[in-house]
Structures are given as C-alpha cells and as structure tokens.
C-alpha cells in the first residue's frame, strides 16, 4: 500500500500541522485527521496484531467497526489500551503504540502462534488441555489450572495502566423533547424538523464533526446543505453534542451517552472532566445511526492493505488521503461504483470487480469515464502478501460457486459485501431486527415506544431519501398530520448479490469472519460439525462477535455461514442480541466523581472540626466519620482507649454521639404508634421521661433498639442506633403510609438538627452542672434516672438533657441545636478536664458497653430474636406489636437458640479474636456452638473479655471447656462462657 496525501483535498486543515508519535517515531498530521488517517498518510501499514495468531493487521475501516488498527495511546497514568485509531481525533503530541506484540507490531515474536494455527481452532483450550492425554490424565483439573494461568496471561489486548487515573469524570442528566442520534443526512434533517416544530432537541454525534456521510462526499452541494442545516439548528437552540456516543437505550426514553470532553486536548485542563456520562430522558428518539459496510470472507482477507470501500472514500474525500496507487475494488452491490470512480479520478489504477454478472449502464459509464476497468463475475479468492498486499488471486463465478482465476497486482484491496444498518440501539430495547433478503441485511422492526429509525439505519441507501426519512420519522413520532410514508428500505438501482464467502473446492485458505478475535470461516463450520446449532452458542464457542467491535462487521457473515452449514436461511438461524454499550465506556466515566473520599457521601457530626482540633483520630462508622480515640502524646490506640474507658469509670468522660438516629414522632396518636412498634409499653410513658425500647421486624427478628423521649403530650424524640437510623425512618414511614394511615402521626428525621454528647462517669452530674445556667435543674431529684428535660447551657444555649446510660455509669446525653455543637464542647470540655476527665471515642465506648453486655449492630445483625439478645423481658405479653406473633414461632422458642453471653479467657492473660467461633473443646470443627461478636480489653476487670452468642445461653456452659477457635488466623484459646453483664450486673452505678 502506497498511500499519499493529496493537496487541496479533504477537510483537514493544511495550515494546522500536528506532530505525533507512533511506536517511538515522530510523524506529522493535520488538524482534522484521525490517528488512522494520519498513519495512512505516513504509509504506516502494520498497526496491530491479532488476538490468537498475532497476524499483522492494518486499517480495515474508518469508524467504530474497526478490527485492525487497535492501538494503545498515552503514557504513564494516562496510558490507555484498545483505542480504535479510526475514531481517535489526532492532537498535538499524541503518543500511540502498537499492542499485543513484542518487540513491536511490525516484527512480533508472537507470530509464531500462526504456525500452530491448526491447533488453535474454536474452543481449542477446552479440547486440548482438559483431561486429554498426553496433556493430562484423569479427571482433568489440576493441569488445566496450570494451563489456564498461561492462557489468561496471553488473553486480552494491550495493558491497562496500573497507576491511578489522574483525570476526573462527570455524570450529567439532560432532558429533551427529541433526541436524535447521528448527524448524517437523516439525523440532521430529523433534528432540524423537530427544532423547526419548536421542540427541544438534543443532537448527538460520535464524530468530532457533524455531518455523517455528508463529510465523505466530494460535492459542494453536500457541504452547503450540511452547513446550512447546522446553522439552522444552532439558531433554533438545539443542543448539539459532538464527540458523544449514544451507547445504550433504556426504559422510558432514557439514553446513555458518553461525551469525550478533553480526550482530544494536547494539554489537559485540570478543571475539565475527561469524559461525561450522560443520562438523557427524551420524549421521542430518532436513531439515525447509519449503516456499516461489510466485507466478505476470502483468503487472507485480514491483511494490511485490505479495507472497506467506503473507508477508502472517507480517507480520500474527508482526509485527503489516497490509500493506494493500484487498487482492486470488489463488490456485490452498487454502492462501491462511485467510490471506485473517485479513486480512479484521483489517479489510482483501479480494477473493479463486481460479483454480479452484469452492471447497469449508468454505473458502467461512470467507471469508464473515470478510467477504471470493470470486470463482472469476479471476486477476490486470496490476497497475496503479509505485512501489506501486493496482489490478489481472483475467483470467477462458476455456476453457484467460484473457480480460481487470474492474479491481479495491487497495493490496496477494497471490499464491499453490502451494508448492515446499525440496529444496535433499538436492539437494546428488545426489538429484534428483521432479515430483509432483498437487501441482504437485518433492518429494524417497528418499536412500540417513541423511537424511530431513519436513514441508512433503516436500510435506506440514497442520500435524498435518507434526508426525507429523517423528516418524516420525526413528524410521525410527534404526531403530525399528513407526514407521508417513510421510504422503504433499499433503493439501489441493481439488486445486491448476497456474497459472504469466496472459496473454491480443494484450495485451503484462511478467511476471517471476525478478524480481531481470529475467528475464521472454518471455525464456524467446525462449531457446526461439533453440534452447535444455536447462534448464541456459536457466538460463545467461537467468540465470534465478542471482540471490541462486538460483531459489527463479522456477525452477518458468521450467521450466513452457519445458515449455510445448517441448510437453513439466515432468518431461521436468527441473530444474537446486541446489548449496551454500543462502544466501550470507560470505568472512570461510569464512576464519575464518586471516587476517593467521595466514593460515598461522608457524614460529619456538628463537632467534627472540634474533635479534630482536639486530636481525635477518626474512623468510619457507616457513612459517618466519628472520633475513634483521642491519643495523648505517644499513645497507641490500645493505650488510648484503655485510658479513656478507665477515666470514664473513675471520673468522667465525654463522647460525641451525634451520629445516633433521631426521629421526631408527633401527633395525637404518637404514643399509640410507638406502642405498636416497640415490644414494651409506651402508651403511658410520662412527659419528661425516656424509655429504652426494642422494635422487631414483622418476622420477629430484632430491627433496632434505642431510647424514646416524651417531650410533651404529642411530641416524642426517638433515638435509634447509628447504623439503622435510615432503615428505621423508612420503616416508620411505611407503617404510617401503608398500614396505619388512620393514625395522626408525623415522623421527621431530626438526626441532623441536633448535636449530641454523652457525658458518663461518677462526676458527670457535677461536671454538667457547672455549665448550666441553673445547676440544680439536673440534681438527682430534679432529673432522676430516665428523666428528660429542657436545659439552658451557659451562653443562652437551649437544649435537651436525658439521664440515660450506655456505658453503665451515671450518664447523661445532652442535645443542642447542631449549630451550637462546637460551643457546647467549648463549654463542657474545660469542665470535664477540671474534673480529671477525658474525651473518649468509639473504641472506648465499645469497651464500656461490652463490659455491660449492651448490644449494638454487631449483635443485632438481622438474625437474632429478642430472647436471643437477652432482652426477652422487654417483650410485653399484654399487647400486640409488630413482630409479636412471629416471635412466637417454634424456631424462636428452641432451648438451644444462640443466646447473648459474655466470654472470658480461661487464662486471664490471654486474648482472643472477634469473629472466632465458640466450640466445645472436644469438637473444634464446623460452625461450633456460638460466635464472638466483639472483643475488648476491660479496664474494669483487668483482662480481655468478649461478647457473643452461645447455644442455650451462658448458664448451660458454666464449668464447661470451650474453645474460641479462629481457623482463619490459626488461633485456639480456651475460654469461659459467662453472663453478658460482666461489670456492675445490678446497674447500681448508673442509678447513683
């Protein structure tokens, strides 16, 4: 192939030269080029290597269907594999390299695979390596596992960067009346029609220029039409999106788009996203997605120097590159004639082969006047050459088959085997395309949704009729009257001759159906011989259509060969289902900005900054960031939490508990509502009192626990665990809206309204009192255990206080409006310090509650009943409540149910692991008799303790030898099962 750049031809800007690098070599191109057109103009032929056989590959097309020129671009953290050179817009400084080859695509050691190609037939690894002597004897697993590693290593094309992606990506939503996909003649006319009708239009084009096939045409008329339509669209305010691919269609007019924002920029802005992932919701959708030209299978049809006819036209008229000097054009339809004439007129020696035995007069004279030679009844049988072609062995029609004929020298072989409308997006909606034998292609069926196909995507080939179809399709979708009928598919002057493969009896040739995955015509026949009759199975066995082009070129040929092997017609074989995405979507675009610290939305308490200023080490608790511990200088986490828990029991500790769920329950029926959802009685809870409550799911499993405060006759403040706040809120809403709409109750999340601290320890009351305007308001008489009341902190900060305890100490929770959280801490912390107290975090909070045997989400894990959790005494026998029936089912009444227990190491100097299973010493295996949910060092007891569940409860295991087994970390520790209330079992300290 000896391509040349023609002067004054094409749409590239000769005044804007660009330099780029291909495999380390500096080359020149122009603005308006793709990487493929620039490489072609530089006469670079071998641009890739195939998947299995490492055969050299060059440019095969000029678009998304490319199977040969698949390259890697960028360097370092911007390295990207499997980029189609045919769609990559050239930019200054672009670095591109060949892939799947060593040392390079021109001289690839992997090409040795080609010598063993007969062993690499369809399904070769299943057949060769699994339990088949001499490779493996027996059942065939062990050796296969070894082979598999090698096969996996060899699989794939190119290598992804292992460095973090430096770019950002955006998600975006858009809405419109009409979405038009594709800006060719049909798309531009459709968009224009809709905009003229006053509709809000989004026009999407995957190319960097609008125009589709207009861009490939020589005529000035096409260009002026294109320009005037674009101007009219802009004037009408249409939203025009170039470099944007509609990759999927979904329910209710939703389309997925990928916009490449800065991929074509030499210097990447640090503010612009690389790509945007759009979700567009459209009232109506026009798919003017065009059609892709097929080739046919013949010997060595994958060699560099063989491409589709239309791509040569694109390179000539759009990029000003004459792709060869001595060209053979082979076709079975009329569409290739004009291109051949243009190539000849541009100076190429052109031989035109038409598989049909006659040509109409107009086409004949078009070729004659351009100086091209026409041969009817001919087609290529086998291309000659390896890293480029130097000729082609022809075949001539022989009855219904072919026979070998003369050899023709050439440096470029162009093939047109017909056109396949791009029906992929409509296929995403479950609309199966219909085989049109007349046009030898699948055409779209009618959709029941507001989606229409127009132009060549609907099988219409003539430009004028494509334009007309765009206008009519829009009008029909918008319900206009007197729209006229859509043009029918097919309008070429002479009928296409279906040709899918050229072969002659007795001649062994290697002809490819899916070049990227090296699927040959013989592979299809082999699959049939081995019993594969379903097209879906054929696809998976041979990998036909599974490469990055997703069968855009090879599918129809594969189906035709399968139909031939089965003795059926193509429609009887069917077609595989196209699924999103139409073209690949980067992982970054799917993720958008939801990465790093924004992977999940982080929740901060009102005292977050205060905690950080006071040396908190934070940890994640669900979505929350909570203080984990507050290390003194040089302290480890273990030292810090033991100190914090010790001081809290000795004097006073203060802990940010703002993350607890808080729900305002209001209305005249609020107490009745609470009485129905909690297992214990709430109907008569007095104003100014709090009560601990358990709520169950319908199936009797514990949902959550917490305290609820009665603030007034009709106002309650419910607290939930941090983990289950959202779940409980949704549950309450559901109950009120679905089951009990008659109850006059409103629930509102007020979790973010309040900043909250727990102040625990013997000096808690005295400490808080110094911060109140009325110190006496929280005396033991004025605020007894489980009392609640409004308070005023110094500085006129109004809040609430409840005397409740999670730590087992004399303890209070103080709530202030969140904006006063910092001020509250500034007030309380000096008082705590003065009392010899400390700040404590989640780790110490855990130690304190484990000592007391108080449950959290670790214990209430969606598997336990109220009795299992040791809270059975809170289940009222006098009333009905959610879960009251199903908690009585036999399974929950079994004596050997796992029950909440405490765990001590037998040797008090030892520790054991959370998550260990508890086994009787004579049977340390299986799932054991229980498990450990949490472990801590207990400052109060002076040794390690745990909490968990054990079959039948702790009384059953008194004096028995139990092992805490942790097979994952290879640890076994002898433990004692004790009451879960391991410290101050009578609760005297908190009642002080």
């Amino acid at each position, binding site marked *: 192939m000896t391509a040349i750049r023609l002067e004054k031809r094409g749409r590239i800007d000769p005044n804007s030269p660009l330099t780029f690098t291909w495999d380390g070599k500096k080359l020149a191109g122009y603005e308006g080029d793709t990487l493929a057109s620039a490489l072609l103009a530089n006469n670079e032929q071998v641009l890739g290597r195939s998947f299995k056989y490492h055969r050299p590959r060059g440019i095969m097309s000029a678009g998304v269907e490319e199977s040969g020129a698949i390259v890697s671009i960028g360097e370092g953290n911007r390295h990207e594999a499997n980029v189609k050179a045919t769609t990559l817009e050239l930019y200054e400084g672009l670095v591109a390299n060949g892939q799947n080859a060593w040392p390079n695509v021109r001289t690839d050691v992997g090409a040795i695979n080609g010598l063993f190609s007969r062993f690499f037939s369809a399904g070769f690894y299943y057949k060769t390596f699994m339990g088949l002597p001499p490779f493996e004897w027996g059942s065939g697993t062990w050796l296969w596992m070894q082979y598999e590693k090698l096969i996996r290593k060899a699989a794939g094309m190119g290598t992804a960067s292992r460095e973090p992606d430096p770019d*950002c990506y*955006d*998600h*975006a*939503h*858009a*809405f419109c009346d009409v979405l038009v996909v594709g800006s060719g003649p049909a798309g531009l006319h459709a968009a224009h029609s809709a905009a003229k009708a006053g509709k*809000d239009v989004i026009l999407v084009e995957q190319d960097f220029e609008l125009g589709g096939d207009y861009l490939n045409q020589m005529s000035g008329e096409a260009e002026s039409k294109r320009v005037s339509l674009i101007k009219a669209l802009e004037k009408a305010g249409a939203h025009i999106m170039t470099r944007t691919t509609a990759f999927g269609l979904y329910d209710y007019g939703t389309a997925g788009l990928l916009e490449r924002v800065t991929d074509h920029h030499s210097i990447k*802005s640090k*503010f*612009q*996203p690389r790509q945007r992932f759009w*979700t567009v*919701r459209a009232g109506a959708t026009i798919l003017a997605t065009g059609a892709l030209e097929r080739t046919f299978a013949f010997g060595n049809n994958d060699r560099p120097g063989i491409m589709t006819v239309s791509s040569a036209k694109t390179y000539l008229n759009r990029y000003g590159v004459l792709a060869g000097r001595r060209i053979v054009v082979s076709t079975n339809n009329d569409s290739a004639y004009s291109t051949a004439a243009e190539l000849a007129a541009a100076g190429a020696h052109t031989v035109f082969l038409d598989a049909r035995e006659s040509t109409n007069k107009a086409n004949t004279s078009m070729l004659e006047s351009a100086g091209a030679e026409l041969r009817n009844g001919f087609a290529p049988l086998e291309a000659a050459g390896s890293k480029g072609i130097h000729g082609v062995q022809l075949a001539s029609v022989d009855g219904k088959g072919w026979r070998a004929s003369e050899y023709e020298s050439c440096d470029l072989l162009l093939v047109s085997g017909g056109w396949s409308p791009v029906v992929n997006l409509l296929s995403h909606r479950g609309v199966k395309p219909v085989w049109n034998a007349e046009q030898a292609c699948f055409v779209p069926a009618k959709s029941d949704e507001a989606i229409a196909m127009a132009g060549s995507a609907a099988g219409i080939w003539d430009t004028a009729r494509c334009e007309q179809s765009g206008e009519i399709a829009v009008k029909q979708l918008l319900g206009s009257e007197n729209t006229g009928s859509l043009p029918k598919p097919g309008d070429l002057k002479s009928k296409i001759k279906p040709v899918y493969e050229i072969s002659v009896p007795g001649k062994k040739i290697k002809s490819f159906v899916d070049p990227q995955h090296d699927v040959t015509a013989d592979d299809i026949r082999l699959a049939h011989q081995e019993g594969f009759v379903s097209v879906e199975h054929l696809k998976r066995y041979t990998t036909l259509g599974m490469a990055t082009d997703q069968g855009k070129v090879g599918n129809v040929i594969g189906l035709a060969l399968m139909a031939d092997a089965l003795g059926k017609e193509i429609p009887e074989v069917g077609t595989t289902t196209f699924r999103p995405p139409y073209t690949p979507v980067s992982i970054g675009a799917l993720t*958008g*900005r*939801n990465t790093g*610290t*924004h992977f*999940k*939305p*982080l*929740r*901060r*308490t*009102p005292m*977050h*900054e205060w905690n950080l200023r006071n040396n908190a080490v934070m940890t994640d608790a669900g979505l*929350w960031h909570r203080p984990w511990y507050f290390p003194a200088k040089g302290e480890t986490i273990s030292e810090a939490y033991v100190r914090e828990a010790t001081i809290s029991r000795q004097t006073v500790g203060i802990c940010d508990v*703002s*993350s607890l769920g808080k729900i*305002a329950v*209001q*209305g*005249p029926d609020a107490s009745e509502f609470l009485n129905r959802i909690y297992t214990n009685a709430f109907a008569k809870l007095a104003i100014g009192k709090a009560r601990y409550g358990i709520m169950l799911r319908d199936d009797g499993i514990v949902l959550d626990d917490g305290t609820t405060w009665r603030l007034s*006759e*009709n*106002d309650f403040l419910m607290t939930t665990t941090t983990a289950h706040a959202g779940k409980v809120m949704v549950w309450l809403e559901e109950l009120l809206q679905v089951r009990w709409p008659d109850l*006059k109750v*409103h629930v*509102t*999340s*007020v*979790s*973010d*309204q*309040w900043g909250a601290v727990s102040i625990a320890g013997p000096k808690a009351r005295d400490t808080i009192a110094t911060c109140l305007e009325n110190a006496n308001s929280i005396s033991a008489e004025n605020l007894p255990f489980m009392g609640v009341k409004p308070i005023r902190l110094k*500085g*006129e*900060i109004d809040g609430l206080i409840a005397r409740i305890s999670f730590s087992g100490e004399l303890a209070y929770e103080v709530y202030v*409006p*969140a*904006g*006063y*959280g*910092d*001020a509250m801490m500034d007030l309380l912390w000096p008082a705590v310090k003065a009392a010899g107290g400390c700040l404590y975090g989640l780790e110490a909070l855990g130690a304190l509650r484990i000592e007391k045997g108080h449950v959290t989400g670790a214990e209430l894990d969606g598997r336990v009943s109220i009795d299992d959790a040791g809270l059975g005494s809170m289940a009222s026998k006098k009333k009905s409540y959610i879960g009251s029936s199903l908690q009585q089912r036999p399974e929950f009444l079994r004596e050997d149910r796992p029950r909440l227990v405490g765990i001590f190491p037998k040797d008090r100097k030892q520790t054991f692991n959370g998550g260990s299973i508890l086994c009787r010493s004579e049977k340390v295996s299986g799932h054991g008799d229980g498990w450990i949910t949490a472990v801590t060092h207990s400052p109060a007891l002076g040794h390690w303790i745990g909490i968990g569940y054990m079959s039948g409860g702790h009384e059953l295991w008194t004096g028995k030898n139990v092992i805490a087994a942790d097979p994952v970390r290879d640890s076994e520790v002898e433990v004692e099962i004790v009451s879960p209330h391991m410290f101050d079992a009578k609760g005297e300290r908190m009642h002080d």
Partner: protein
Amino acid sequence: MTNPVSALHGQTESGRYGEPGDVGILLGEVKEFCIFQLAAWPETITAIGKVATTAANAAKVPKPGKMVKGKKADLLRVEPLKWWIVAEGRSTALVPAIDAKKGCGLDLSHSRAWVKINGAKAESMLNHFLPIDLRPESFPNDTVVTTAFHHTGVTLWRGDRGFNLLLPRSFSVSLWEQLHESALQYGLEVL
C-alpha cells in the same frame, strides 16, 4: 449570647476558582436562617395552610411542589401535608403555636445547610448531580422538589435569583465539595 456555627463553616472561602474567563457559577452559603416545618392532617390542610401563609406573610398557599414568596419568609410545600417556612436570619417570630388536633410544628433550622447557586451554568452544574428536569419551562421560578444528590435527599427550589439547595447538615460538607469541584470547569466564584 452564643452565635451558632453554620454547617459549612470554614468551607466556603470567598474567591474566584477554576477555569479562567467568564464566571459560570456563583456559589454561596446562607449562614443564618431558620426552617420551621408545619405538618397538617388530611382534613386540616386548609387550616394549617392558613397558619403557614400567615407566618410567612404570603399571599397564597403553595401547592405541592411549589413555593410562594412571603414578605417574612419563603413558604415551600415540600410534601402534600407539609410546609417549610424558610427565612434568612434567626427569626423565632415565624414559629406559630399549633393545636395538635390540627397539625404539628417542628424547628429544623439546624438540620440543613442552605446553598445558593446562580450563574449561566447553574442548571448544567446541578444536573451533574440531580436527575431533575431543570429547564425553565419544566422547572420555573417557585418550583420546589425533593430529590437525590449522591444518594442523599436534598430540597431544591428556584427563586428569583437562582437555585436554592437545602442539604442535610451532616452531608453538607461532602456535597459542597462535590459542587465546588464540579463548578470549577465552568469558572466558579464563591460569594
């Protein structure tokens, strides 16, 4: 008297950020404001509606999904049975006494961060996060919606001077960071 700290305290430093050229996005926090929720029962919508309009000094009761600008406050119908009275400053005069048989009142002033978003690219930027049709014909002035922003429930309305976003306080820094980052591409000014 202690002054409260706003939800985005320390996060909203004024200045010009991001892409040079025209400012496409103006972001600002309303640091002091109050939100008072009024909730009615199905049979007391009219009565509570009147209470709400009186409190906001508004001319009429907004329908669900709508806002009416009152002389004292904006009145948002956030749910069929619920109104939010939203006003800048810390006015307690807005809080009406309500008979429980008619409905409930609730102070939510500290539960949200109030972000104002304006500029030529405000719609585009918001649509990077919100799956809402914000075209003026679909989302005209005085429209209110509760929607999802990075899986978080937020309240959005369009006023005379652009968009208003109420973010749950605990999520607000995280969501502000996302707004800020995304706005950089359009040229951002934090007010």
